[in-house]
């Protein structure tokens, strides 16, 4: 099922993949984070960062964003919610692959994020949570006088 994910595409997520591989190697042969979930869990998550902010993307199609509970405690981001898929009683089902029910994911962000400056938006089924980093964490150019 995940065979196609191992092939590379010439996109930014190649970089994600390559970096993840490197990180896996760095942290000892694929040791996952203690809060990470098995592949295929709902919602799928990608996290990207720049010196200014950390962007968390939740691939959560068909949810009501108002029902989503997003909380941040220091650098720990918790996302909880549910997706109810109504079952048609009169119909005969051939496939039911889409996730239905409650979900909860916890992500450990870099230490320097500012829990006071978080924004979230929902578009086309992706929740984007932007957490700004503290000023002091940004790399500063030091001038020599």
């Amino acid at each position, binding site marked *: 099922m995940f065979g*196609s994910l191992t092939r590379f595409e010439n996109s930014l997520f190649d970089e*994600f993949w390559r970096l993840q591989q490197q990180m896996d190697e760095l942290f000892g042969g694929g040791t996952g984070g203690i809060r990470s979930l098995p592949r295929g869990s709902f919602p799928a998550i990608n996290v990207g960062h720049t010196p200014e902010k950390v962007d968390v993307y939740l691939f959560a*199609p068909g949810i009501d964003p108002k029902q989503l509970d997003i909380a941040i405690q220091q650098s720990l981001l918790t996302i909880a919610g549910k997706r109810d898929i109504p079952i048609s009683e009169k*119909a005969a089902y051939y496939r039911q692959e889409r996730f239905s029910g409650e979900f909860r994911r916890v992500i450990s962000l870099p230490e320097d994020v500012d829990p006071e400056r978080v924004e979230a938006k*929902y578009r086309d089924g992706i929740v984007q949570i932007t957490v700004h980093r503290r000023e002091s964490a940004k790399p500063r150019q030091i001038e020599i006088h």
Partner: protein
Amino acid sequence: MATNTSVAERDSRRSTAQRSAQTAESAIRPPVDIFEDGDGITLLADMAGVSKERLNLRVDGNSLVLEGDMQFELPQQAEALYADVHATRYRRSFALSRELEADKIEANLKDGVLTVRIPKRAALRPRKIEVRG
């Protein structure tokens, strides 16, 4: 029920071969729900990040093909910390059968969920047969 599988999946061996024959372009296989009632078949697919403009839903021969490119804001110099999703394209196809009206397919895309309604030909819809007595 199993004998009347009107939408048979075909993206197993055949398209795996096709895919490997093509360039090494990877695509996500979107999870689907498929159900049938008296009037037709309904298919729902999770395609987060796909807008109407970037959805390509088509009937190709007797296949229903779902394709879409996801789009989201990614800062220029972003580096990954973690990624469950490694591709930006969705693709999956299903074989249609003759009693379905491919030219009357209706589709709707909302919040990354694609809903496709494939009606059955009127003559083939089940009719309740009354027993007079």
